[in-house]
């Protein structure tokens, strides 16, 4: 580190009260921004968990569907039509629904039921106990062992339960990539058993999952499905549709945006004001440095360094604090939906750089205005 930066650093950190105030301001702002965005990211990620877990390339649905768990059943002919489209390797139905499970203790628990195509079991989860072919056994269900698993009283293979007054038997335990948003356990069974056990409307197909022969076939398939009055979305498009729904149609996005903006403004106010006071208090010293022979660009470097140093330390502390709190929350609540993403970190980092930039700008303007002659005049 060059000598001039060392002077800048000492001027900054040796003024402990101001340095701490600056750090607190930036740390607090980063903490709030990261927390808000991470919670939102977590919610968005969980809201698309079914799409990730099933893993199909193309999802066919009613155009009015705006999130995976609120499907609108489609008639059987859509499946037949989909299978006849050029470029479709195969197309299978999948069922998504909810049911009430009566546990051994006599307690009731809502569950999310996924009915897999009987012939292919396309979209099946990875088993950690049991064999997948046992799903064809009578009353067979596979239970997802995730954060909600305990709500089913931690069943083992062989455990029996009642589901909508039908017998259910656990034949396997599975793991999935992502847990659901609504905090209810998930069970998998075959499509036909699902529509038999769970009361449904005239139509039963929640979604049709399509595997295209080639990636290049996707636009044609989407076009043909559209002609049927339905919508075919790639996995990413479906995830985006769900995210857009939560972001723009539930008010959640606006709330997060407002909280993030408020956090930024609070952080900017505290850091800007404190840094400005710091510069004012050291103005005579900067003037003295100018008189001694420091050049304008050296003083600017000093101020930028001071602002950036504080911003980076505050950023690190803020990210650490937010991550620590999330870890603690997840220890207490395994289904706690918050995740720190690179996007969140980058966004918060840019916001912190803006804070540092604005604070520096105010400081630099003030320091460049001071004339060494003012130092002589006292």
């Amino acid at each position, binding site marked *: 580190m*060059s*000598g*001039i930066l*060392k*002077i800048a650093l*000492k*001027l900054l950190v*040796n*003024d402990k009260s101001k340095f701490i105030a600056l750090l607190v301001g930036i740390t607090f702002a980063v903490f709030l921004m990261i927390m808000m965005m991470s919670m939102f990211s977590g919610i968005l990620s969980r809201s698309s968990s079914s799409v990730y877990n099933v893993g199909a390339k193309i999802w066919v649905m009613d155009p009015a569907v705006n999130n995976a768990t609120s499907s609108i059943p489609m008639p059987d002919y859509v499946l037949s039509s989909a299978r006849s489209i050029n470029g479709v390797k195969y197309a299978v139905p999948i069922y998504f629904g909810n049911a009430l499970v009566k546990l051994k203790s006599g307690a009731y628990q809502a569950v999310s039921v996924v009915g897999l195509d009987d012939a292919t079991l396309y979209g099946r989860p990875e088993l950690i106990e049991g064999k997948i072919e046992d799903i064809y056994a009578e009353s067979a269900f596979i239970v997802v062992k995730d954060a909600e698993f305990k709500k089913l009283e931690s069943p083992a293979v062989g455990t029996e339960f009642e589901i909508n007054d039908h017998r259910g038997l656990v034949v396997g335990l599975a793991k999935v990539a992502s847990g659901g948003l609504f905090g209810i356990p998930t069970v998998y069974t075959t499509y036909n058993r699902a529509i038999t056990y769970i009361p449904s409307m005239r139509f039963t197909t929640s979604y049709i999952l399509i595997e295209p022969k080639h990636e290049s076939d996707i636009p044609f398939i989407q076009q043909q499905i559209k002609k049927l009055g339905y919508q075919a979305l790639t996995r990413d498009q479906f995830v985006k549709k769900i995210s857009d729904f939560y972001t723009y149609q539930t008010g959640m996005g606006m709330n997060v945006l407002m909280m993030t903006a408020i956090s930024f403004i609070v952080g900017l106010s505290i850091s800007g004001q404190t840094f400005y006071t710091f510069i004012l208090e050291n103005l*005579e*010293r900067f*003037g*003295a*440095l*100018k*008189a*001694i*022979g*420091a*050049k*304008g660009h*050296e003083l600017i470097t000093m101020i930028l360094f001071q602002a950036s140093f504080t911003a980076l330390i505050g950023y690190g502390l803020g990210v650490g604090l937010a991550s620590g709190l999330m870890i603690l929350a997840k220890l207490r609540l395994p289904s706690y939906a918050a995740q720190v993403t690179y996007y969140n970190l980058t966004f918060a980092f840019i916001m912190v750089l803006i804070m540092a930039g604005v604070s520096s700008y105010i400081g630099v303007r003030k320091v460049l205005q001071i*004339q*060494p*002659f003012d*130092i*002589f*005049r*006292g």
Partner: protein
Amino acid sequence: MGKVAIKANALVKWFGEGETKTTAVKSASFEANFGELLYIVGPSGSGKTTLLSMISGILKPNEGSVLVEGKDIWQMKSDDIADLRLHKIGFVFQDYHLFPRLTTVENVAIPLILKKMEWNEALKVGLEYLDIVGLKDRAQLQPVKLSGGEQQRVAIARAIAGHPDILIFDEPTASLDGDTGRKIVEFVKTKILNAERCVIIVTHDSRIYEYADSIMKMEDGNIIGFERNTNAIP
């Protein structure tokens, strides 16, 4: 007397415009030589500080020129003037302007650091200059823990650490008692001033006039007198 260190030619400086225009210095010309302790004296508002600022490359005159070692400094670019101040001129400000968050030795090392000397080397040299002013044992203290006279000496050490040819003191004894003020000037005369260095002191403290080699009197922006002090205390 040695060679000419600073030559001021018909310097004029005014502030404000129109009815608020005030002329602080009216056509000031003089020379300061190497090996000379020159006092600029006069009452408050006589233009001493303005003149000092113009000859040290801090305040641009409206008219006239300043030659430092033969170079017209106000024809230079601002970065070159800053370089000239750093390499040729040392300042001791009236309020010292020491950095309270730095140690005494770090304060002394500032001109060296600005000259891009490596940090530890600058502190080492700074310590030598603190030794010259008799404050080596105070090196790690912060300036606020020093007395007024000691702070003044730290400011002197800082001013001479860059090894300048010209030293400029602004009211060096203004906030010191008579004894301490006298000791400071005596120290400057005996330890700092030499044949390769010119020292200019702005003061209105008549108690220290006896040390001056030359005294230039100012009043209302004019130089009203310039006398050689043949009885100066050596």
